[in-house]
């Protein structure tokens, strides 16, 4: 089962976690204090650039009967939609720019160019997802309600459809999100799910009709004879944006190493533990400045989850400091290339489509989820390191927090590493045992075969003897019979 006790899992004491929390707080504070004109310029320019791209794209599409114009327009529009969604919509709605006190760039009023209403998304995402990040049963972004992303969740036959569900979610991502948010909104607002004219439903209907009308009716109609081409361009731009947003989100949450938690962990969780949960529950991917911008800086998903309301343009510098903390506390910092992170998520999606009996690992120690029990009872006789390699688990006690040789803190990262070494060693030993057992068996079999052969030989010998005896007997009896006949 997923992590129930983050302290044990992280190999930190309550005091350690507390100081870690304070260090993160001070990062937050220093960024807050240094927010200023430079940051404001960043977001204003981003907005202006996005609007410029969009206007240009829409304008070029008026000539979309020409193939090149069509292509250019589609590309411009796709890029504009991606920026609008990732760097603007997502981040503004998180309140990252509320400090500017600008009513037009404010979380309470920003509306994005996606099907679902921003207000519903804000509740579902900013509240549910960011408060209960990766807590099973609380964070509905864990698989978006249609996929099994951890083996903590029970397998159902419907999960066999997972590869298909994944494809569908990726291509229609904005709709997936919109419906997902609508249901969470109804739940949070306590609206009867079947009441057709409820406020959430009405907001939803109004927003989607505007969005659909704009992209699939009004713009195409405005371009007149290029109706069909413009329609296609708009649809494609939406598709591109959907795929990209999907990929970014999946890379931030589902690669191996992004941990899951149980409700138990949530009980009495301190704010420092909350930080730690965000850190261990998210994953980054490596990106240069351009890709970072296009992902709304969500390639810094760990930093985003730690500080969802700090300006996105500051994530790179925050990331450097968070990495330092990870080194200091010997905590893992999950990252990798976009391709690698996605493949890991992809692997999980397809693996977990299968029932558990086809899966090898347990929910305590699997690539996509592990728990503090992963370390329990893993012991290895000293392999020349000079210290006892008992790893702390539920019941063990002697985890050395400081490496006696280097004087460095030994935390989760070392533990994960050593668990790997231990498990490998254990596997090696088991293999060795197996080989020995096999050899012994083979020997035994050989021996038995030998014995069998001997026994067979002995039997054959005996049979021969008996046959000979019989023959002799027969010879002895013969004259008597002949004699009688003669008579």
């Amino acid at each position, binding site marked *: 089962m997923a992590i129930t006790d983050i302290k044990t899992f992280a190999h930190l004491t309550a005091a350690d976690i507390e100081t870690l929390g304070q260090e993160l707080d001070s990062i937050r*504070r220093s960024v*807050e204090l240094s*927010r*200023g*004109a*430079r*940051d*404001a*310029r960043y977001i204003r320019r981003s907005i*202006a650039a996005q*609007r*410029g791209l969009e*206007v240009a794209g829409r304008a070029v599409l008026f000539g979309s009967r020409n193939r090149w114009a069509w292509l250019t327009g589609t590309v411009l529009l796709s890029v504009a939609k991606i920026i609008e969604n990732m760097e603007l919509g997502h981040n503004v*709605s*998180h*309140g990252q720019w*509320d*400090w*500017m*006190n*600008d*009513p*037009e760039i*404010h*979380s*309470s009023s920003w*509306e*994005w*160019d996606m099907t679902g209403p*921003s207000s519903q998304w*804000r*509740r579902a995402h*900013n*509240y549910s997802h*960011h*408060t209960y990040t990766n807590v099973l049963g609380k964070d509905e972004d864990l698989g978006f309600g249609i996929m099994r992303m951890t083996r903590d969740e029970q397998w159902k036959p419907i999960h066999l459809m997972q590869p298909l569900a994944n494809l569908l979610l990726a291509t229609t991502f904005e709709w997936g999100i919109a419906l997902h948010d609508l249901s969470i909104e109804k739940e949070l607002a306590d609206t009867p799910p079947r009441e057709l004219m409820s406020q959430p439903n009405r907001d939803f209907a109004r*927003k989607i009709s*505007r*969005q659909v*009308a*704009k992209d699939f009716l*009004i*713009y195409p109609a*405005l371009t007149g004879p290029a109706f069909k081409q413009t329609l296609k361009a708009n649809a494609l731009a939406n598709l591109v944006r959907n795929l990209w947003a999907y990929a970014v989100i999946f890379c931030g949450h589902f690669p191996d190493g992004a941990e899951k938690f149980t409700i138990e962990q949530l009980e009495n969780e301190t*704010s420092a533990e*909350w930080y730690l949960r965000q850190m261990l529950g998210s994953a980054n991917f490596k990106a240069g400045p351009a890709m970072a911008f296009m992902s709304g800086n969500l390639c810094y998903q760990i930093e985003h989850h730690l500080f*969802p*309301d700090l300006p996105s343009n500051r994530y790179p510098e925050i990331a450097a400091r968070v990495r330092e903390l990870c080194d200091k506390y010997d905590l893992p910092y999950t990252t990798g290339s976009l391709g690698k992170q996605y493949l890991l998520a992809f692997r999980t999606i397809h693996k977990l489509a299968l029932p558990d009996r086809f899966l090898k690992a347990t929910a305590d120690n699997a690539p996509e989820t592990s728990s503090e029990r992963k370390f329990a009872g893993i012991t290895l006789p000293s392999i020349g390191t000079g210290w006892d390699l008992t790893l702390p688990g539920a019941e063990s006690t002697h985890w050395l927090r400081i490496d006696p040789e280097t004087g460095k803190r030994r935390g989760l990262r070392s533990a994960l590493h050593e668990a790997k070494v231990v498990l490998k060693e254990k596997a090696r030993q088991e293999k060795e045992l197996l080989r020995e057992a096999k050899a012994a068996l083979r020997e035994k079999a050989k021996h038995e075969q030998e014995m069998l052969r001997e026994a067979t030989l002995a039997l054959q010998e005996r049979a021969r003897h008996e046959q000979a005896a019989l023959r002799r007997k027969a010879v002895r009896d013969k004259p008597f019979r002949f004699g009688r006949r003669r008579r």
Partner: protein
Amino acid sequence: MGSKRGGFSVRGVREWLEAPAASVAERGGRLNVLRGAVARVTTPLLPDDYLHLANPLWSARELRGRIVEVRKETADSATLVIKPGWGFDFKYQPGQYIGIGILVDGRWHWRSYSLTCPPNWTEPGHGGKRLISIAVKAMPEGFLSSHLVSGVPVGTVVRLAAPQGGFVLPYPPPEKVLFLTAGSGITPVMSMLRAMDRRELVTDVLHLHSARTADDVMFGAELRALHDRNPSFRSHLHLTGEHGKFALADLDSKFPDWRERHTWACGPAAMLDEIDDHWRDVGRSDRLHVERFEIERSAVGEGGTVTFGKSGRTTEVDGATSLLEAGESVGVRMPFGCRMGICQTCVVTVNSGYVRDLRNGDEHREGDKVQTCISAAAGDCTLDV
């Protein structure tokens, strides 16, 4: 034609067209049909969101203005002349104030200042455009007022909030008027005087103004000119640097008919309290109008009375109780989500007073939007919820 056919009506279509721009309807005027129609295409934005990238004043989504002149009044005060953008209502009443938002270091700061100009005012040299003006006095601790008096360049774009306030002069003005002002309390009264002057309706007006020295008197020359044009207007200067505070008891000897006059008073809180008491004592409260300025302070208190504007409820809290809890304790429906400062669900505007961010001690004031789950009252405050 306005005829109804098949359930459609011109009005219905018009409403449908305007719907996307409904939030700015009250200032958009006739342009709203167009704005609404174009918004079908620009949704979820408004056409204004694109237009103001070309010219910051081309937006009715938000009132804006451009500073066209900064005129020194005294050593520490200045008049700012502002050309408002689309949608500004020039039919305000003399004596009202406006909210003005200024960008400093990437952040918008809101303050309220009395308008000093008469309604529908134009000034030669500005192309016959209608303008507004405010007068700002630099406060020792007020970083924004100092910035406005000595640092704001002509051409700066500001945000504006519609004129408001009940400290106004009725039309026609009463036969006998008394203005009691001190310091920058003169600003709303200037607007009244200028409006009277422009409409050539200066009745019997007495003005008593207190300032520390003669150099501190704002609009001194203008007041003299006003008297020259309209002898029924008399201005008396009281210099507190020389004579100390004006004693209300002297009113009887100096202006024996003060009880008959309709009085407008504006100045420091202590002075207004005194005036309030004095007028009540003589049973003339019905003829007294006062305007209290929020004085810029940097040191504000801990806790206070929180008023929830829309529901009208109030509660007394300490400096550690979050505004969210404060509201919930008196049954106000406060929006909330995470209750830990990360989700922005609980954001509410501060209408007046001061609020402190409990996480880092940052102060917020009128016009700021705050997260109620991690903010507490820093003195009395009113929230827009």
